C-alpha cells in the first residue's frame, strides 16, 4: 500500500498539473486554429516554448528522481507528451474541419476533448503524486469532460464524422480513406507547423492602433529594401578641445525600381551654428544597391562643453507597395451555396480563405482591409458601397516625415467617393500618369486614384489610417464579378514618402588649454616610478620627466586602459616635475592610469608622448 505523503512532497506534481491546465485552457481559449479560433500573433512559438518548458519541468522537477542521468532518462517521455499536446490541436484543426464547422463552441469543445494530454496523464497515471485537493480538481475536470462528450454526441453534425470520399473509391466510407486523409493532413500540418514557427513572428503584423488590419511582408522578398544607417564611429579614441571632432558611418541603400534619393546632413545641437565638413553633399541617387561612406568633421574648438552630441541624418524617398486579394460572388448565389451547406471556398478550390495584405519590405508597412471574403455583390440593388481601410505604419526607428502621394488601385467597377480618417485630397488618374513605372498598372482592370494626404510626421511604431469609401453601380457589377463563379480581385496601394533615419553619438571632449607657452620639441620620458598617494575620492600622482614639458594623465576605472569613460588631467607647466591631483574618484575602487608628456616630437600621436607603462592604485574606503 502506498504510504501517505506529506503535502510538501506533492508540490512539484501539483504545480505541473495546474500549469498544464493553465496552458491547455489558454490554448483552447486563445486558440491556434486558423479558421475558427482567435489567432494570437506569435501564438505558435509561445505554445511551443510553453509545452517544452512543461516537459523539462516534469522531467527534472517531478518524475526524474535521484541522479541527473535518471532525470535525463525521464525527459524523452515528457517531451513526447508535450509534443502530443502541442501537435494535437493543429491536427485537430484540419482533421476536424468538418467537426468544428458549427462555430466557436464546437471548436473549443474539440480542443478540450482532444489535447489535454498532460492533465490526462497526470490524473490517470500519476495520481499518487498529486495531492488530495488536486485529485479532487482532476475529478471535477473529468466530470466536465464527460459532459462535453455527452454534449457532442447529442449534435448530429459531430456524429457525421466521415472522411471525404476521394476519387476512385466506392460509395462507402472506408477506413483507408480516413487513414489516407489523416496522413495527408499530418504532412500538411507538419509543413505548416515549421512554416508558421519560422515566419509568423516576422511576417505578421497586427496594427495596434487605428484599424486592426493584418499585413504580411512579401514573403518572397529577399532584398532588404530601403536605407540602413550604421551606428556612428569616432575618428579618434578621445578628443580634446584642441582636436577636430570627426565621426563616420556607413549607409546601405537598396531598391528594385525607383532610384532612392538620399540626402545626408551632419549637425550637432551642441554647436548649432557650426558648419561641419561632411560628405556626401546634396542629394544622392541610388540605383539597385549601394554602400555609401559618410564622413563628418567639426573643426577644433567647435565644442565648448564637455560633451558633444553629433548627429547624422539621412532622408530618403521610398515607395512601399501593397496588395490585398479578395473574392467577389453574386450575393444570391452565395446565399444559395450557404443554404445548400456548400463552402464556396472549398467548392472553388480556394485555399487562401482569409487573404491579408502583402507589402514590400522597407521602413513603412502598408495594410489594407475590406469586407470579409467572399464579398457578395447584390445585383438587385442599384448601388453597392463599401469601405477600404488603408493604414501606414512606421516600422523602423526613424521618422516617417512626409507622405507625398498614395496611389490606390481599386478593382474596375469601384470608384472612390470619399476619404476620411486623415485630411486628404484625391483625384482619378490614369496609369500613364505613373510613367515610367506604369506597366504594372492596367486601366482595363482597375481604377487608379492619386491621394494626397496631409498627415503629420509619424513616429516609430505609430500608424495612420485612411478610410476610403467605395461605390459601384449596377452597370459595374459585371466587371467586378467577371465570368467565373467566384472572381479574384486585388486592391493595390503604392505610397511615396520621405523617411528620415538618424544616428547620434555623444562624444566627451577633454578640456585642454588652447595654447601652451612653450612647446617642447624633444621626446619626453618619465624618470623612475611615479609616487601615488590615494585618498577616498582623490589621489595625488607625482613624477619626474627627463625633459621639461606639459604632461597629461589619462585615468580609467578598472585594471585596463580600455575604458570609454576615461578622465584626462592636464598639467600645462613646462617643468620636469609634475603633480597631478586626480579628483572625483570612487572610494575603494581600482584605477589605472598612463602618463604622457606633451611634445611636438610626438606629433603623430596628437603631441602625446605616451609612456610604455601603466600604473594602478586603489582608492581608500570612506
Amino acid at each position: 500500500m502506498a504510504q501517505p505523503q506529506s503535502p510538501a512532497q506533492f508540490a512539484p506534481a501539483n504545480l505541473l498539473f495546474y500549469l498544464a491546465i493553465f496552458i491547455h485552457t489558454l490554448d483552447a481559449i486563445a486558440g491556434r486554429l486558423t479558421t475558427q479560433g482567435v489567432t494570437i500573433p506569435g501564438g505558435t512559438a509561445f505554445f511551443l516554448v510553453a509545452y517544452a518548458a512543461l516537459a523539462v519541468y516534469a522531467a527534472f522537477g517531478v518524475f526524474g528522481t535521484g541522479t541527473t542521468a535518471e532525470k535525463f532518462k525521464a525527459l524523452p517521455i515528457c517531451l513526447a507528451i508535450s509534443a502530443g499536446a502541442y501537435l494535437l490541436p493543429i491536427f485537430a484543426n484540419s482533421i476536424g474541419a468538418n467537426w468544428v464547422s458549427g462555430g466557436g463552441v464546437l471548436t473549443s469543445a474539440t480542443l478540450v476533448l482532444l489535447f489535454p494530454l498532460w492533465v490526462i496523464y497526470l490524473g490517470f497515471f500519476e495520481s499518487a503524486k498529486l495531492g488530495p485537493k488536486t485529485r479532487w480538481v482532476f475529478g471535477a475536470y473529468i466530470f466536465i469532460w464527460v459532459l462535453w462528450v455527452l454534449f457532442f454526441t447529442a449534435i448530429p453534425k459531430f456524429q457525421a464524422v466521415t472522411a471525404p470520399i476521394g476519387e476512385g473509391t466506392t460509395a462507402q466510407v472506408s477506413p483507408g480513406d480516413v487513414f489516407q486523409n489523416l496522413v495527408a493532413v499530418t504532412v500538411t500540418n507538419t509543413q505548416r507547423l515549421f512554416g508558421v514557427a519560422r515566419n509568423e513572428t516576422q511576417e505578421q503584423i497586427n496594427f495596434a492602433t487605428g484599424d486592426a488590419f493584418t499585413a504580411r511582408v512579401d514573403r518572397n522578398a529577399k532584398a532588404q529594401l530601403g536605407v540602413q544607417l550604421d551606428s556612428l564611429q569616432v575618428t579618434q579614441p578621445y578628443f580634446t578641445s584642441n582636436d577636430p571632432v570627426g565621426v563616420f558611418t556607413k549607409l546601405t541603400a537598396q531598391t528594385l525600381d525607383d532610384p532612392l534619393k538620399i540626402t545626408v546632413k551632419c549637425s550637432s545641437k551642441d554647436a548649432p551654428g557650426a558648419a561641419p565638413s561632411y560628405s556626401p553633399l546634396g542629394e544622392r541617387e541610388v540605383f539597385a544597391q549601394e554602400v555609401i561612406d559618410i564622413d563628418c568633421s567639426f573643426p577644433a574648438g567647435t565644442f565648448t562643453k564637455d560633451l558633444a552630441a553629433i548627429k547624422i541624418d539621412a532622408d530618403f524617398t521610398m515607395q512601399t507597395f501593397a496588395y490585398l486579394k479578395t473574392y467577389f460572388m453574386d450575393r444570391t448565389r452565395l446565399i444559395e451555396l450557404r443554404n445548400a451547406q456548400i463552402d464556396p471556398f472549398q467548392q472553388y478550390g480556394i485555399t487562401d480563405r482569409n487573404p491579408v495584405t502583402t507589402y514590400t519590405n522597407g521602413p513603412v508597412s502598408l495594410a489594407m482591409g475590406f469586407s470579409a471574403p467572399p464579398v457578395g455583390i447584390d445585383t438587385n440593388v442599384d448601388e453597392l458601397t463599401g469601405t477600404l481601410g488603408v493604414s501606414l505604419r512606421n516600422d523602423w526607428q526613424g521618422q516617417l516625415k512626409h507622405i507625398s502621394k498614395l496611389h490606390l488601385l481599386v478593382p474596375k467597377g469601384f470608384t472612390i467617393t470619399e476619404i476620411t480618417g486623415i485630411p486628404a485630397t484625391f483625384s482619378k488618374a490614369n496609369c500613364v500618369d505613373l510613367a515610367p513605372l506604369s506597366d504594372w498598372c492596367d486601366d482595363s482592370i482597375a481604377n487608379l486614384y492619386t491621394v494626397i494626404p496631409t498627415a503629420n510626421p509619424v513616429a516609430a511604431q505609430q500608424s495612420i489610417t485612411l478610410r476610403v469609401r467605395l461605390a459601384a453601380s449596377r452597370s459595374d457589377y459585371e466587371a467586378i464579378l467577371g465570368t467565373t463563379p467566384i472572381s479574384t480581385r486585388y486592391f493595390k496601394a503604392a505610397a511615396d514618402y520621405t523617411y528620415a533615419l538618424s544616428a547620434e553619438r555623444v562624444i566627451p571632449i577633454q578640456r585642454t588649454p588652447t595654447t601652451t607657452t612653450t612647446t617642447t620639441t624633444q621626446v619626453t620620458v618619465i624618470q623612475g616610478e611615479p609616487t601615488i598617494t590615494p585618498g577616498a575620492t582623490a589621489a595625488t600622482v607625482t613624477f619626474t620627466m627627463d625633459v621639461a614639458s606639459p604632461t597629461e594623465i589619462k585615468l580609467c576605472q578598472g585594471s585596463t586602459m580600455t575604458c570609454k569613460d576615461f578622465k584626462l588631467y592636464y598639467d600645462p607647466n613646462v617643468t620636469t616635475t609634475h603633480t597631478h591631483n586626480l579628483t572625483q574618484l570612487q572610494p575603494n575602487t581600482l584605477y589605472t592610469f598612463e602618463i604622457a608628456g606633451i611634445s611636438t616630437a610626438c606629433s603623430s600621436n596628437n603631441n602625446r608622448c605616451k609612456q610604455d607603462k601603466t600604473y594602478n592604485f586603489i582608492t581608500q574606503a570612506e
Partner: protein
Amino acid sequence: MRLAIILGICTLVLLAGCAFRTGTSIQEVNVHTGTKGITLTFLDQGATRATYADSATAVTYELANEGAHDVEGGVLSIGVEDDFLQLEGDRVRQFTIDGKSLGFPEGDRQIQTVQLRTKSLPPQTETVTTTVAVNVCYPYLTEASLTPCVDTDVFGRVATKPCRASAISLGSQGAPVAVTRIEPSYTQMSDPNLVRAEFIIHVRNAGGGQLFEVDKIFEACTPQALGRDSWNVATIRAYLGDQQLDCTPKKAGLAGLDGHLVLAKTEDFVRCGLPGGLHKSLGTFTGTMRVEVEYGYTFTTTRQLQIRRLV
C-alpha cells in the same frame, strides 16, 4: 516439294500467331464502376510552375471522362487573376467528351492548353504567386442495374422460393453520384390479389464536386445565381422490367413519375413504387431493375503559378 515447304512455313507462321489460351475466356469489361466522371488534371509539360514577368506562358490540362456516360454540352470557365495574368482566348468554353464504353473502355481524353501572358510585377516586388482555376460543369447520368428478388408472397406461405427479397448494397456505377443501396418491401394492397412493391433507393455524392440542376450547366460555371433549391439536387428514375416506378418526393410543382433527390449531406433516398402493384399470381422471381440518376455536376481544379521578376 518446294511448294510443300513454303506452305509448311506459312502454316507455322500462322500457328505461331495463335496464342494458347486454354482455360481463359474473353474478359468482360465493366465500365459501370468507379466514382469518377469528368476529371481535369494539370500537366507539367508545357507549363512551367515558375515563369517570368512580361512573358508568354501556357497551362495545359487533360480533360478526361472516366465515367460511363457521354457528355455533351459541358462547360468550363477559366479563372485567372487579371492583375497578374492575361488570358488569351475564351474564358468560357464548351466541351463534348465520350465516356467509357465496351468499345472504348478507357474513356475519352483531351489535352487542352490555356495561353497566358504574365503581366509586369508591381514595384519593389520580386515574385508573386497567382492561381489559375478551371471550373468544370457538365451534365451526367448514373445508371445502376440490378436483379432484385420480387416476392408477391407477402405472408410467407410458400416454403421454397427461387430467391429471397432483401436489401441490395451497390458499389459504384462509373459516375460521381452512386446508387448505394436498394431496400425492397412488398406489402398487401386493399385488393387481395395485388401486392404493393416499393423500393427505397439510397444515392450518394461520391465525387469531389457538387450537384445541381441538370438544365443549368452554363449558369453553374458563370457568376449568376442558379435559383432557389438548385444545388445538391438530382432527378431519379427507376424501372422494374420495362415499367417505370413512381418515385417520391417529387420536385415541387412537377407531376410525372420522376423522383427528386436533395443530397444536402451528400446522400439522400427516394421511395419508388410500382404503380398499380403486382399481381400475386406472379409469385416469386428475380426481376431486372434499372435506376437512372440525372444531374449537373461541377468541380474546380486550381493550379498555382509563380511569376518572377526578370532581373
